[in-house]
């Protein structure tokens, strides 16, 4: 008995997957390999010819205090943002699954920070954090926390600049975390909680022994997505502070961009960007493990 090609699942599976696989190999895998090759070379915008230089780019990167500063900043940003995103995302998810009038409008308003192109919302924030005209300063002056004509210079002082960048990240990614956690809240089988109620478990008992353990894996997924997106993002830093003042808000991604594109030193930029990879891999493995655990339900 002969089967038509269009009936043979094995051949069909290959035909269906081949375009995606080829495309990803061409435009994700090969640039990735190329990034490693660049990191070991002296390629620059002015002299694109390839000369192997071994670990010299890495040596230069390690000698550069700005690199260590960026690395530290990246961790601070990611860590603080992740915690805030998960906690606020959970709160937001609970609000969004509740039943009330005007829910559609509230959902629309809540989604805005996430669906708006990040460069555009960041530029709105640039004015909200302006050194003279900041509306936040105006409110503080209005309530007497700042004297007349006083300003905080949100983006001009290292500590405040970092707070500002973290705040914008959290503001932007919390709705995403909320959507992921909504998916989790919807997926939790209702009958478990109902059964517990019938068996006489009180509110707190249900909260700690049923709700939190069930939500935890989903919260972990949201946390890791939040971490990956904060960790690799440079748009907020780029638009708000350009890494300043004095590299106080410089992160790995933005530093790689300065070295590699604006400084034209492709080799060193690639070396800096490669530092993102091991940490991303760790995050990815963690996400997958958590997702596996959810699937066993």
């Amino acid at each position, binding site marked *: 008995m002969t089967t038509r090609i269009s009936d043979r699942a094995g051949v069909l599976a290959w035909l269906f997957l081949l375009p995606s696989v080829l495309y990803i190999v061409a435009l994700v895998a090969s640039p990735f390999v190329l990034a490693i090759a660049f990191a070991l070379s002296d390629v620059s915008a002015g002299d694109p010819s390839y000369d192997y230089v071994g670990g010299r780019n890495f040596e230069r990167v390690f000698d550069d205090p700005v690199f260590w500063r960026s690395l530290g900043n990246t961790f601070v940003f990611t860590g603080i943002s992740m915690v805030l995103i998960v906690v606020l995302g959970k709160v937001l998810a609970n609000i969004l699954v509740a039943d009330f009038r005007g829910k559609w409008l509230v959902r629309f308003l809540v989604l*805005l920070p996430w669906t708006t192109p990040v460069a555009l919302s960041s530029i709105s924030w640039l004015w909200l954090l302006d050194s003279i005209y900041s509306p936040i300063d105006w409110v503080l002056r209005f309530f007497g926390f700042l004297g007349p004509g006083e300003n905080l210079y949100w983006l001009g002082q290292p500590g405040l600049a970092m707070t500002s960048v973290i705040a914008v990240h959290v503001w932007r990614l919390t709705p995403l975390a909320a959507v992921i956690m909504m998916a989790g809240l919807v997926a939790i089988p209702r009958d478990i909680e109902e059964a517990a109620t019938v068996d006489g478990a009180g509110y707190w008992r249900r909260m700690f022994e049923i709700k939190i353990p069930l939500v935890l894996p989903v919260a972990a997924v949201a946390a890791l997505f939040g971490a990956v997106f904060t960790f690799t*993002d440079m748009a907020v830093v780029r638009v708000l502070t350009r890494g300043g003042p004095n590299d106080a808000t410089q992160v790995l991604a933005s530093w790689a961009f300065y070295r590699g594109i604006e400084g034209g030193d*492709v080799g060193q930029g690639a070396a800096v960007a490669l530092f993102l990879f091991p940490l991303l891999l760790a995050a990815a493995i963690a996400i997958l493990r958590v997702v596996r655990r959810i699937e066993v339900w």
Partner: protein
Amino acid sequence: MNRYAVRRVCARIGVYVAAIVAALLCAGPFLWSLVTAFKQNRDLYDPTNNPFVFNRPATPDHVTYLFTDTAFLTFTWNTLWVGVLVVLITLVLALPAAYALARLDRPWSGPLAVAIFLVYLVPPSLLFLSLSRMVVAIGLQDSTWSMVLVYPTITTPVSVWLLMGFLKGIPRDIEEQAMVDGYSRLGAFVRAVIPLVFPGIVAVVVFAFTLTASEFIYALAFVAPTDQMPVSTGVPTQLVRGDVFFWQSLQAATVAVAVPIALVFNLFLDRFVAGFTMGSVKG
């Protein structure tokens, strides 16, 4: 009985208060942008003026300026057509791939699905340097087409993941019935499965378009000429002359871009939630 009634009322009020606070925290900057966009310069550039209300009569001048005297409409047009092409390429790549991984039961489909998920986590900030050299080598530097070529790397993996979720939600009997009725496997996919997974396709279209419109690093690294830029790099780089920001026009641009995307996204929010759920949870 009364205590229960009071409790219920309090809980209702609490829900509304929480919802309003959340909405204001999230959308506050946009509401304020909307006010600012219509302010006169003399109103805006006075630090003693209340920044949340009009201290002088509103003016549409700066908004008109955005649409008539800047390249904003060009940016918008670029974002739109790049987005449409990227979405089409994404669907052509992702839909068959998702079907193969979700349904055709090869021994390697599990590991390959994981590999595709890992690709989703490889960020532009890791690849932009080598990709920009590749774009130069192909001769697409400073052309909007470079984005059409590269953006599906961002959208395809996540779309495969989402579509797998939707496909798993469709009972297998439907294809089997179609094949019993004389369709080939391919025919069953095209005629029976695609129409059923249509809601998922729409969700993926919206999601992929949003990702494309938001992308920043590649656009910044690949394209320098004003007329080739999309909204995400055009607005922040071209509405600024040296140190002079066209603030009202910038705020108007943010609102003009943000509102339509969020409106469409909100329409499909329930589907995304369903897609995430089916994909990752009920695997």
